[in-house]
């Protein structure tokens, strides 16, 4: 449900959580009274141990779950009140990248990326222009005919990023995008995400990787047992143990 922007969000904000809680069972909240604001064009790391509420937060932002309490606004959509029929249109503003890539294994690189454009009903003529352009940006122009099984982990994640970006989303949600990659590929993917962010896309990345968080010096939100314990500009990854 679209909102009048001024009332809930500042002009430069794309995500607002207002005292959001989420409980799967009555006594154990996965997120508890979380409030945060993320501006357009920010690069934000969300860190925390397993069970800290990172995945729940991502699911809430994708409207895969509804908050138990509080209000959640993304891109002028009040997600608490967004009906199921309007979820697809909302999600087209968000690109998603997963740790396990989630590519369609029976389709080649080109088809995996074109798939995202077909879903939003981009005319075929435009798809033929957009897909090679985005594959060139992620450095896979020469491998458009390859199937996911013929690519390395880093290359598969690039395809997933290309698929997430091809519809020009305002926000890119990356859930442990380097979790399955070696250090070399991790650096390349982080470099790519930084370039995407510099081009204007808001990047929200969930990670366990201390080295990359500390090296990039971006905003770091630390969750622990469903509560934000630290939110720092140019932050670092601090182990809670």
């Amino acid at each position, binding site marked *: 449900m679209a909102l009048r922007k001024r009332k809930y969000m500042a002009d430069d904000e794309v995500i607002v959580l207002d005292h959001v809680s989420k409980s799967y069972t009555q006594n154990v909240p996965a997120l508890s009274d979380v409030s945060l604001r993320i501006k357009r064009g920010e690069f934000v790391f969300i860190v925390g141990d397993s069970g800290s509420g990172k995945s729940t937060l991502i699911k809430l932002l994708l409207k895969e779950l509804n908050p138990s309490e509080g209000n959640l606004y993304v891109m002028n959509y009040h997600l608490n009140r967004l009906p199921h029929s309007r979820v*697809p249109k909302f*999600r087209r503003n968000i690109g998603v990248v997963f740790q396990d890539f989630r590519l369609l294994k029976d389709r080649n690189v080109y088809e995996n990326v074109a798939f995202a454009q077909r*879903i*939003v*009903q981009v*005319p075929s003529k435009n798809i033929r222009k957009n897909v090679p352009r985005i594959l060139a940006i992620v450095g896979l122009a020469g491998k458009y005919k390859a199937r996911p099984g013929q690519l390395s982990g880093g290359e598969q994640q690039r395809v997933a990023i290309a698929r997430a970006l091809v519809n020009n989303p305002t926000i890119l949600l990356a859930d442990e995008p380097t979790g399955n990659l070696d250090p070399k590929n991790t650096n390349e993917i982080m470099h790519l995400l930084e370039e995407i962010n510099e081009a204007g896309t808001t990047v929200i990345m969930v990670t366990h990787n201390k080295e990359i968080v500390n090296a990039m010096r971006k905003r770091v939100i630390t969750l622990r047992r469903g509560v934000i314990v630290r939110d720092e500009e140019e932050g670092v990854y601090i182990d809670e143990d």
Partner: protein
Amino acid sequence: MRISTLFYTLWQGIKNIFRNKWFSLASIATISACLFLLGIFYSILANFQNIIKTAEEGVCVVVFFDEGITDKRIEEIGDMIRKRPEVSKINFVSDDEAWEEFSKEHLGEYADGFTENPLEGSSNYEIYLNDITMQSALVTYIESVDGVREVRRSEITARTLGGVNKLVGLVSLGIIGILLAVSVFLISNTVTIGISVRKEEISIMKYIGATDFFVRGPFVIEGLLIGLIGAAIPLGIIQILYNKALDFLSLRFEVLSSLLNFLSVDVIYETLVPLSLAIGAGIGFFGSYITVRKHLRV
């Protein structure tokens, strides 16, 4: 919806059949097996009902008139009977025709010894019914008509044929119902397994922003095509088997085929083709539609 999206959905539905060829083959085989059984049973049933119907059509009620009745009154009685809905055919047999038929059948050349018609006053109506179970009601009616002396009928034949017809109808309804229920169960299980394997694909589509319609489209097209192919295969097999069975019966059991009137495959297919295609397409369509729905709440 864009035309290109429509073609994309159709094309993806067709491609899905080949992408998941083992699932497609399993589904087609399940549907084919169920509809094959249904087709065989229907063919036997249709022939059985046809034999009963032919036997029913041969059973008639004979109406004799009072002595000295006028031709005009006989015609009036004929008109009254003809108007009854259960009557399919009515023949008038005059005294002379009755004698001619009797003498030909039973007397042969000895009939020449008769100078007068011994069956004088035996003119009658032969009445054939379209529903043998209505015989009693018709007889009661005719007996009350003025000018009617006697009504002859075969109560046992009518009752037996009516009873058999009813029993066959009930048994076939039961068996067709069971076959359909088994088909729906087997096919929906196959579709469920096939779609569960691809729930990741559905979740990816949903995360990217696909509408329920877009996600469901290719699966439904796929289900529809699998259902139609699954229905067409047994129709082809039954046609060959049915014709072979008719040839076999007419060659090996000549007496049987002269007594019983078997239906041609064309007559059987007038009902079986639309029935099988509708069941195949319906199960494929609704099976996919309902099963995909479970995975759309992402």
